[in-house]
């Protein structure tokens, strides 16, 4: 929906200060934990110390008798199961009959203060019968003992989801290929690490309305699940999302604390707050699934992909979360930017006795992207083709259809490759870098929202309401969750562009289910495209009304009226102008109160015509290329990532600095997953998390982070507002394989398992050296080293 009868961009693509930047920088933003209500109680959750156990009994009497304790709830108070995906409601707010991982919630106490609540949960007596725990997904799947089925709602043992899809004759294409690259890959689990821990506050109004403030990125789904579990009709519940301190997918479904504070507020008749400890954030998790991936890829000798065969095991943890979708995504999102010829994937998600995995930035597709991009690099080496050239030859192009029948619109992948190639000096530098130094490239794609909502319905996927008033201000009401990605600013920029107001004159009110139209939430990189389109739709209707009113008074055609710089101007005689306030007053006089709604629904011709063919289809796809430069120390195994060049096709950057920030932040996050992050439990120590805190779970600091050169590519898409596509998740994916491929270029080792920790890198270097000494392999970059010493 490129802007119809627009004049020129006076805001689109510019650099903007985020609408909430000054509050944030001055430290006066009120996050959920900053809310304090009169008479408010504090709640704590008692959690399971066992990875897998039956609950034989819970005795809360001692806790209830403690002075200062106002209420205690257990799983018996939440017998209705829920789940973010309507087909897999397989968890309860608190454990009902069994616990499935260390940290599973068992009971919750509301008390006059946190210390009293902590003392009270310690006084609750729980009798457990321990069960054998499973930490390996394949062992969990092999289990036939029904007693040891982990998830209490599972119908097929420890199988959470199994998907097989085949497009074309894969085995035939592999047989006919000039080269088949086979590889086994492992992507380690990682978590989000948002700085703000989850927090929720609930209050019951005298009229019975339950209000829940929560650090969530999906207020609408939280609204629905609260209604279901608490058996309160949705019109009696209000969900408000205060400003968030990061989310990255870790707050995209309901969690135990929201149900607990709501129930306890109802029970106690007082407001109740619960703030997770950092440790509890690690237990709620829903981060990246560990995946074991087996890939076979066929190539012609010219480097064209003939077919891809993938077999993937997903380690899901104790609950489904988004797992049904993740299982599809692990195969479905891989079919661009390269034309696969033929494709088969089999993905199996298992329940294990660990915190549940779910969506983390680049949901479900970062892991297979890691595998396929290394596969391509291996093929480039084997065929003697430049890795960038090999990727160019397989580019699916714009206005194309993927092997799994998804329709791709705009595609700036070629330009992304060229930009990183040029900026890094790839052609000149790569052939001459000595042993230890290397350059590596990788490409990727991501969705700009999913074509279909999580629960099937015919209503719009996004809606925005805008009001103008005679003071010259605009108010934008949107259900979308600004999680720090800048979606409120994005809406202000669109309104600013269309109505000629500076950002300061626009107030965006978001994510309050009483005040705002429904939006589905901040996930799958949907907001710019979907909510942006809805906003553009409403803003353009208002713009026409305002221009009409001005044109009438000036007796000129409407198209001559321009709204910009807090004014309405005559395009042919800019000396003639009035303030925005005056123009709005004229329009209000002509039309009555100035308010419009806009909504957006996805085009229904983007997906494949088969079961599962809608999952992963999107109105538009972003494209990315990463190129990493590394310095590998062959004596310590330390990988020093010097620079990452990244070019990202976001269709159209509505706000340049925010897009650059998303590209940099995504690239950084991938870098951390490549080198250090590991969200794991310790089977040798009863399944405890190896370090549920930010000292032991190592995310890179500022000093560790490479120079990131973020470049914006704009292949405008007909489905995006002003052509815009996503920028929040795509630029993570190829960061990781680009580093892997650069390490190969530097020292000749393939690291097919993450993370690339120094001991692992060193062991691989030493193994290669042994093989060189045994005459099995030539020294890496031998020619270059010989040439240099000559």
């Amino acid at each position, binding site marked *: 929906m490129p802007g119809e009868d627009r004049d020129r961009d006076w805001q689109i693509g510019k650099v903007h200060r985020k609408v909430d930047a000054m509050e944030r920088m001055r430290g006066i933003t009120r996050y959920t934990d900053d809310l304090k209500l009169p008479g408010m109680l504090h709640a704590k959750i008692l959690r399971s110390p066992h990875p897998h156990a039956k609950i034989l009994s819970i005795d809360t009497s001692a806790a209830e008798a403690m002075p200062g304790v106002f209420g205690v709830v257990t799983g018996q108070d939440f017998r209705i199961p829920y789940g973010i995906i309507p087909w897999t409601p397989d968890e309860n707010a608190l454990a009902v009959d069994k616990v499935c991982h260390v940290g599973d919630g068992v009971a919750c106490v509301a008390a006059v203060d946190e210390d009293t609540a902590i003392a009270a949960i310690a006084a609750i007596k729980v009798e457990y019968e321990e069960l054998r725990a499973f930490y390996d997904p394949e062992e969990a799947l092999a289990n036939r003992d029904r007693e040891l089925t982990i998830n209490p709602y599972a119908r097929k043992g420890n199988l959470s989801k199994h998907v097989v899809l085949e497009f074309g004759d894969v085995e035939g294409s592999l047989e006919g290929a000039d080269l088949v690259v086979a590889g086994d890959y492992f992507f380690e689990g990682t978590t989000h690490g948002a700085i703000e821990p989850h927090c929720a506050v609930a209050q019951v109004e005298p009229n019975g309305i339950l209000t829940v403030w929560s650090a969530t990125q999906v207020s609408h789904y939280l609204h629905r699940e609260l209604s279901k579990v608490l058996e309160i009709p949705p019109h009696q519940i209000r969900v408000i999302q205060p400003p968030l301190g990061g989310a990255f997918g870790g707050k995209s479904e309901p969690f135990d604390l929201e149900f607990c504070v709501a129930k306890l507020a109802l029970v106690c008749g007082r407001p109740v707050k619960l703030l997770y400890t950092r440790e509890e954030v690690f237990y709620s998790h829903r981060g990246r699934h560990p995946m074991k991936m087996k890939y076979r890829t066929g190539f012609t000798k010219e480097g064209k992909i003939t077919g891809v065969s993938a077999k993937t095991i997903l380690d899901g943890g104790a609950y489904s979360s988004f797992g049904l979708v993740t299982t599809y995504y692990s195969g479905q999102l891989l079919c661009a930017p390269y034309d696969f010829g033929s494709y088969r994937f089999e993905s199996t998600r298992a329940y294990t006795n660990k915190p549940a995995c779910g969506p983390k930035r680049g949901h479900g597709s970062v892991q297979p992207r890691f595998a396929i991009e290394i596969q391509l690099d291996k093929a480039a080496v084997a065929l003697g083709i430049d890795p960038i050239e090999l990727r160019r030859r397989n580019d699916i192009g714009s206005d194309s259809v993927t092997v799994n029948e998804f329709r791709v619109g705009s595609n700036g992948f070629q330009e992304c490759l060229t930009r990183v190639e040029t900026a890094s000096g790839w052609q000149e530098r790569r052939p001459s870098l000595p042993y230890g130094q290397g350059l590596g490239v990788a490409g990727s794609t991501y969705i700009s929202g999913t074509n279909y909502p999580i629960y099937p319905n015919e209503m719009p996927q996004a809606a925005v309401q805008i009001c103008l008033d005679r003071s010259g201000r605009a108010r934008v009401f949107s259900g979308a969750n600004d999680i720090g990605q800048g979606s409120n600013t994005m809406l202000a920029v669109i309104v600013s562009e269309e109505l000629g107001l500076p950002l300061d004159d626009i107030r965006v009110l978001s994510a309050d289910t009483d005040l705002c139209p429904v939006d589905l939430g901040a996930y799958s990189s949907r907001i710019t495209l979907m909510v942006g389109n809805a906003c553009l739709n409403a803003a353009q209707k208002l713009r026409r009304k305002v221009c009409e009113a001005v044109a009438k008074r000036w007796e000129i055609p409407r198209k001559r009226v321009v709204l910009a710089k807090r004014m309405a101007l005559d395009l042919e005689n800019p000396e003639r102008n009035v303030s925005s306030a005056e123009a709005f007053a004229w329009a209000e006089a002509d039309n009555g109160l100035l308010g419009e709604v806009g909504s957006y629904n996805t085009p229904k011709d983007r997906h494949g015509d088969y079961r599962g063919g809608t999952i992963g289809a999107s109105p538009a796809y972003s494209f990315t290329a990463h190129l990493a430069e590394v310095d590998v120390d062959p004596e310590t195994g330390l990988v020093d990532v010097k620079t990452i060049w990244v070019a990202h096709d976001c269709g159209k950057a509505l706000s340049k600095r925010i897009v650059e920030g998303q590209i940099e932040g995504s690239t950084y996050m991938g870098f951390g997953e490549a080198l250090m992050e590991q969200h794991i439990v310790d089977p040798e120590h009863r399944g405890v998390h*190896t370090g549920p805190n930010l000292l032991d779970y190592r995310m890179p600091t500022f000093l560790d982070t490479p120079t990131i050169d973020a470049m914006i590519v704009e292949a405008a898409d007909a489905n995006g507002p002003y052509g815009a596509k996503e920028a929040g998740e795509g630029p993570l994916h190829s960061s990781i394989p680009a580093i892997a491929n650069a390490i190969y270029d530097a020292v000749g080792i393939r690291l097919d398992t993450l993370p690339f920790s*120094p001991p692992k890198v060193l062991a691989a270097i030493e193994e290669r050296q042994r093989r060189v000494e045994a005459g099995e392999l030539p020294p890496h970059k031998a020619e270059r080293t010989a040439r240099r010493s000559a």
Partner: protein
Amino acid sequence: MLRLPHFQVSAPTTVEEVVAALKEEPGARLVAGGTDLLPNLKHRLEAPEQLISLGRLTSLRGIVRDDAAGVLRIGSQVRLAEIAADPQVAELFPSLATSAGLVASPSIRNTATIGGNVNLDVRCRYVNQSEFWRGGIGGGCLKSEGDVCHVVPKGRNCVAAMSSDNVPVLISLGASLVLVGPEGAREVAMADYYRADGLRHTKAEEGELTTEVRIPLPTTPRRVDYVKWAVRKSIDFPLVSVALRFDLDGEGVDAAITAVQVVVGVLGAKPRQVSRLEAVIGRAMNDPEVALLVSEATFKQCKPLPNVPYEPAYRRQMIRVYTRRAIQALAQG
């Protein structure tokens, strides 16, 4: 957020008052910067009823060169950031400026004191976790609620690791501590201060307070360094921690070595002073054999344990690599 246990805090203004307060409240704990103690309290590793804050002890905040005594005196309340930035420290003891500047993060260095850092509690991956977590592994260990060691199966001695960046350096520089207690002041060489027992890893007596670190002024030309490897370049405790000191008979890189000190941290509770380095005495600093001999001896004598992250075999190998490289760099210019 984890909650602190409840405690009383007193804030005396003189050393005598602190000693008196310690005598009055035998279980009391001293708190200076609090960057080590408070997280440990949040983890319920101890629960003292009384904290004695040293924040008002203005007399212990100086760095003074005492030529008469031949020492640099650093008051125990001096912040690590001040040591890292102090011109006298940089000139006289550059390895200490380096180690103080490598501790944790800028905000922690602005808060943490040298007195606290030399008394830093030893650390272990199975200890420095929440009480809930320790319950998950079956009820803690020798150093917390339990009676087993998760690092050395069947071990009866706690092997939690000395993780201070500054302690190995101060030992290598021959530093001593001044401790003041009910019996008055005494000076203890830091080389003798630490014990190989994670439950009681220093020789401080009940009721004693560290008031000063004394470092003998150099009497010969010397070359010193501190090498730290951690996963991240900020915030992390060291995983490889080596202090080096070569005393020389001249200023040049070809001067002969007259004495050598190598002290390694993050092994067990006590830092290890590498011995049997006589083979390098008399050799020129830039003799390539020096780096090899010293790093090899260090490798042989240091055996890391799985008490901190990363495989012990890897860390042991890295002790050799980093030691060798640091000596090679010292021999450069």
